[in-house]
């Protein structure tokens, strides 16, 4: 089992296929700030899904989209919606945190029928460079399940209305 790989301002870095080439692998990171939000709210299930689905699963992504069709501002960037990448695929499992009185357990379940998993990544405008990994090209911001498109397998329903463009598909 691979450990968490903290690096600079990232809590963890992980591999994914490159936006410009689905045959090439790049590194993405989860920033401390992004993780703090789920930690602050004690959202255990999204954290379990990160380790159980996202961390090693991004290389299973079948589609990559770029751009959200809705207003999004990040810092001074008024067009941050255009720099969001969305990876989607059908994972084999779902991960759920089952709390107990003093602790809790992770339950692995078959993936929900008719749903796909999406991971939202913000492309870094000035990627941080690291000798071991090279540039960290994007920051993983969010992940969740969405109904699957009835026509394009492994893609979210209404993907044409949700996203700006489809960059590639691996089917």
């Amino acid at each position, binding site marked *: 089992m691979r450990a968490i790989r903290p690096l600079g301002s990232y809590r963890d870095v992980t591999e994914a296929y490159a936006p410009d080439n689905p045959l090439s692998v790049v590194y993405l990171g989860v920033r401390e700030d992004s993780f703090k939000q789920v930690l602050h709210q004690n959202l255990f*299930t999204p954290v379990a899904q990160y380790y159980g689905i996202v961390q090693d699963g991004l290389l299973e992504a079948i589609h990559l989209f770029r751009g959200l069709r809705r*207003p999004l501002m990040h810092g001074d960037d008024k067009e941050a919606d255009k720099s969001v990448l969305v990876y989607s695929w059908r994972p*084999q499992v779902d991960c759920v*945190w089952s709390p107990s009185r003093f602790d809790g357990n*992770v339950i692995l*379940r078959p993936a929900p029928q008719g749903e796909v998993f999406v991971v939202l990544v913000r492309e870094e405008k000035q990627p941080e460079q690291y000798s071991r990994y090279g540039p960290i090209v994007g920051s993983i911001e969010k992940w969740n399940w969405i109904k699957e498109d009835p026509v394009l397998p492994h893609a979210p329903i209404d993907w044409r209305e949700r996203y700006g463009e489809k960059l590639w598909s691996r089917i």
Partner: protein
Amino acid sequence: MRTADGIRALVRETFAGASGGFRPCAFFDDRLDCIRIIARDCSVLETRINPYLTVLEDNYYLESGRKQYVGFTVKGARHFCDEHGLSMSAPINVSDLLNAILKAFPDLAVELFVNGIARPLVQEENIERVDVSGASGPIPKPSLA
């Protein structure tokens, strides 16, 4: 593929030093410019009502016997709040937010969402205000394609 015990160990490591469990919450997600209302920590299916609104559904509500809807998201929150006179310099009253949503999107789907899902949810969970402490900076211009 990871085992449940392996994932559990990483989750415990991540939450090391944290205290308490999940409580229903309403907060501003600065990095994705959203207001998020979350009533349960569970695996959720996100269903889009329109480009600004998403409802969160428990993936396993049928077998657990729990409530189906566990939250919602208001996207493009800075612009939406600015357009509808909701100041983000202080916590926002959820009731005011829902009234603004109804006014902004006068259609049946949104009315059903607000009155049939969102209002009952926040009332049952006693979610009265949205913490917008993460909001700062200028308001974005709409960029819907």
